[in-house]
């Protein structure tokens, strides 16, 4: 082989290596992650009676409630049997590093209740805790010991700045309480990847799902978990329906 041929071959080989290496190092979610999973969660059976909450120990709770009565939120069922506060997430099938949403999740103390009652967040995603009330609250989450998440107990007085919290590990689910208002109770579900929480009608939507076949899990604090398989294609929103059996 002549010299200029050797040089060209070497350069070509190097370029080839470079291109392969580039392709290899690219994260698996190379294609646009614009897939969606949407659906509803229903409760099959009568909605259990939710006891009204008596907030008289702190009259200032009433100031931010505007007269709306409060009731327990462990099972919230909408008009058409839709089950609220169900976290729907992908438990199997996701691969590679998933981008953590830059927008923080908001967790508010309003009218002496947590809004939302169940919040889903990715590990490493920021959570902003706000106190909208005219009274102090303390935020006391109790993650599993040894699970990678740290417990804390912090109070927010009236007018206090927001708290910024991130969770290190997946955990389904971290109970969080206010000790000053013992009826205040919520769940923080820390899961990787796209997720959604069903609203008052039981509707949920997962966004930015890369195409693929997955196991979808729905979790409810009282009824446990259900799973189903779902396939997401480019441009075609996938549908999933869940139905929990009432007790």
């Amino acid at each position, binding site marked *: 082989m002549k010299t200029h041929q050797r040089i060209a071959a070497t350069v070509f080989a190097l370029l080839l290596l470079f291109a392969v290496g580039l392709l290899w190092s690219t994260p698996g979610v190379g294609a646009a992650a614009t897939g969606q999973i949407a659906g509803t969660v229903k409760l099959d059976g009568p909605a259990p009676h939710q006891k009204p909450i008596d907030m008289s120990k702190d009259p200032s709770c009433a100031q931010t409630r505007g007269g709306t009565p409060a009731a327990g939120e462990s099972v919230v069922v909408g008009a058409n049997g839709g089950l609220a506060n169900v976290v729907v997430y992908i438990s199997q099938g996701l691969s590679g590093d998933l981008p953590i949403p830059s927008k923080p999740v908001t967790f508010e103390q309003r009218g002496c209740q947590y809004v939302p009652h169940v919040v889903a967040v990715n590990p490493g995603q920021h959570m902003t805790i706000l106190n909208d009330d005219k009274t102090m609250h303390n935020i006391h989450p109790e993650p599993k010991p040894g699970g990678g998440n740290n417990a804390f*107990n912090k109070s927010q007085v009236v007018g206090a700045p927001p708290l910024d919290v991130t969770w290190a590990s997946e955990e389904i689910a971290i109970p969080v*309480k206010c000790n000053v208002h013992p009826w205040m109770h919520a769940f923080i579900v820390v899961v990787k990847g796209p997720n959604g929480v069903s609203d008052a009608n039981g509707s949920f939507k997962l966004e930015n799902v890369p195409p693929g076949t997955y196991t979808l899990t729905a979790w409810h604090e009282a009824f446990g978990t259900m799973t189903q398989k779902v396939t997401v294609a480019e441009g075609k929103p996938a549908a999933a329906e869940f139905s929990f059996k009432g007790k």
Partner: protein
Amino acid sequence: MAETSVQAAHHAAPQGFIRKYLFSVDHKVIGIQYLTLSMVAAFVGMALSWAMRLHLAYPDFRIPLLGWLSPNGAPNGVMTPEYYLSLMTMHGTIMAFFVLTAAPFAGFGNFLLPIQVGAADMAFPRLNMTSFWVTFVGFLLAAATFFIPDGPPLSGWTAYAPLSAVGSVAGPGQGLGQTLWVFSIALFCIASLLGALNFIVTTLDLRTKGLTLSRLPLSTWAWFIDAWVSLLAFAVLLPCGLLLALDRLGGTSFFIPGGLVFNDQLQPHSGGSPLLFQHLFWFFGHPEVYIIILPAFGIVSHIFPTFIRKPLVGGWKVITFAEIAVGTLSFVVWGHHMFVSGMSPFMAMVFSVPTLFITIPSVIAVLVWVFSLYGSNLRFDTPMLYSLGFVSLFITGGIGGFFLAQPSTDSYLHATSFVVGHFHFTMGLSAIFATFAGFYYWYPKMFGRMMNEKLGKLHFWLSFVGVYCVFMTLHLTGFAGSVRRYSAFVDDFMIPLMPAQRFMTISALLLGASQFIFLFNAIWSRFKGPKAADNPWGATTLEWDTTSPPPSDNFGGRQLTVYHGPMEYHGEASVMQTSPAASVAGT
């Protein structure tokens, strides 16, 4: 007797900064080290109280520096409720232990007791040095709690179990903060026990020739009695603290019963008794307040004769036996802290009787001081002004005790600000005024300079009026049911008391500011004060029969002999204890 007693080892004057001022076995240096530590602690404790009072009266006020000290505890300078409780806990802990127990007893006692008994040093100088440094490390541990993420504990200086025993699930600061606190107190206990031992042995064994117990200076008597009370009381606090540490770290349940639920989680303890903690703590806690006040009795009793120019009524016996009675009775009254605690109501009556009876020796002491003024040649130098102030404050504080000593009246006033007013008067203010009296009195002896009289008097007037403004008002809001240890006043019945809260806060800040007059005087006089003579007050006890300050072995090689009691004052004239001259006839 003195002839057969053990002599303290004579030590050659130490060389070098470290042996002279830092790790010194010289009781005078150790005494000044204790006084310096307690002065630093006092300013820290006071600063904490200013922050607390500001928050109570002006809850939205952004306190400067606080947000910087703890962004967690005071975001933007506005305290969280748990941080208020943490500051309150450390205020009580620092003041009760590192100021009030340290200064009048360990501070003055260390400097003066060996000199007053005519010895060259304490019986165990190295043990003495150890006591100070152990106390110092204890203080560092307490201070350290401010710099850990969750901050100091919030359970009060009384640290009741189970709140103090179950760990961080009970609240912020209840993790590492409470653990550091327990170890800090344990070290303080050990140091106090060692110190008490030293005081007792020195007083019994190292008295110089002629110094019988009947000729002992009244301050020495008080330190001696106090050392016994200290020995017996701290000996109970130490195991109490160890049991608490075991519950926290060792999985035991001395103080934690079963079935406790925090944050919907059942706790893994069972079989313990929270009341056991209260009994152990208060068995120490009540004598502790007398450990604090007895040296004050002694200092004032010692100072009075110098400035009334005659002995106390009843001589050394009446006041001293009153002190012994108070010290002894202090061990059988602890249940009056527990009238509504769930303890048997019958026991409440049993504790109430000696609690009321302890009034009698206290009244005897007050009568001795007050009626010694009759027919006296009263001089109003600053030490005497403070001693008189002490008497007034102690009367006021003691009167509040009548309400708290009876279970029926205590059932309304317990845990109200009435209690806070009461103990600040008796334990805080009286003892502090006596400490100031001692400071102004013995400063010339300790530092060879006189403190400035004008500044001293100004400090007195501002402090005397200030303390009544702050702490008498607390008694009054207590009658209205104002609850103590609240970080904010949100209940309907507390709102009308806010003007009183603001009055107390402003008074407290002014009172705090006036203490800087004292600080300035103390530091400035050290360098610029007029040089002090050996005996600037015309007093009689042995410390005035040596130079100001004394040489390293206290008496420059002399072996003193005592011929008189400590109160040979006859108007202008006085007879020193060591003077061979005969007493004036009729005394």
